């Protein structure tokens, strides 16, 4: 019997490409966020409100990830932001290679902030580093206040939580403080914002914070 010592991470290929992406972002002085959530939490709507708020003052580029269609990229294109759509054809998360390939089609001249909107999925994206500076997780009030406890991996790995659709609180069974506290039990250092893309409540606070950090 003989033993070969290996000590290699299984996802090392992705990690290596993520490092390359990170180096490119650093070289171009790009602040990059990985926007994650369940399907339908409002990631694209938050992106639209963010682009509206910055209104070319801060130049933003977007990488969209979806299983099918380019609907989200078309929505973003209306705001004159450079955008590219990744269609995974069944893949349930973006990985570093998909992002590296997409970067080739993106005009990053003058861009300060790159937002990668991941495939709607609260499980798999938490394990795949794309090279981002931080993950921003969106949880909407319609999803219930126990979400962070049910998907701890994603909330552990995020730096920011945006609680979206706060305008619907009177109509849903969700206690805002419970949701916030559950998230903080999993990750006490989470920065929390509360937004509504319909009323624009909380959007300025989120965007100001983002601009300060970009």
């Amino acid at each position: 019997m003989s033993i070969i010592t290996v000590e290699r991470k299984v996802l090392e290929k992705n990690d290596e490409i993520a490092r390359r992406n990170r180096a490119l972002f650093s070289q171009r002085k790009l602040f990059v966020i990985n926007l994650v959530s369940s399907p339908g939490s409002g990631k694209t709507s938050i992106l639209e409100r963010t682009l509206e708020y910055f209104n070319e003052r801060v130049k933003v580029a977007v990488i969209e990830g979806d299983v099918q269609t380019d609907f989200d990229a078309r929505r973003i294109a209306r705001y004159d932001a450079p955008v590219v759509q990744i269609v995974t054809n069944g893949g349930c998360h973006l990985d570093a290679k998909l992002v590296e390939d997409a970067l080739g089609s993106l005009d990053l001249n003058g861009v300060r902030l790159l937002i990668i909107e991941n495939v709607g999925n609260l499980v798999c994206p938490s394990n795949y580093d794309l090279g981002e500076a931080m993950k921003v997780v969106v949880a909407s009030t319609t999803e219930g206040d126990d979400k962070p406890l049910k998907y701890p991996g994603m909330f552990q790995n995020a730096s920011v939580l945006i609680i979206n659709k706060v305008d619907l609180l009177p109509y849903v069974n969700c206690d805002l403080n419970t949701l916030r506290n559950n998230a903080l039990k999993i990750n006490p250092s989470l920065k929390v914002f509360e937004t509504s893309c319909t009323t624009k409540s909380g959007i300025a606070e989120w965007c100001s914070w983002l601009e300060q950090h970009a």
Partner: protein
Amino acid sequence: MHELSVAQSILDIVRQSVPTDELGDVRVVRLKLGTFSGVVADSLDFCFSAISAETPLAKAHLEFEHIPFAVKCHHCQKTFENDIGFVVCPECGGVETVVLSGRELQVTEIELENEKD
């Protein structure tokens, strides 16, 4: 998570670590698997068996060292474990904690059977 693609990555690592003419001697691939690695051991085992069947690695199987989700509190120095992901110290309620382990997903070693075994 994606046990099938994870199994494929493990196969690739084994092929890169073992000389081609010795692949048929591989019996055990040992892995560290953290509570929050995102991977289910039984599913991974099943997928690995499925994709290694009818290859030189057909006699190999996976063994797992389960790594707990362990957190250390800077305030009271206590280390605690759980499988729900809480990082607030159960002893003193402190939030200045650091995760020590629990996200591992790595191939640690490969065991081969020699002719004289």
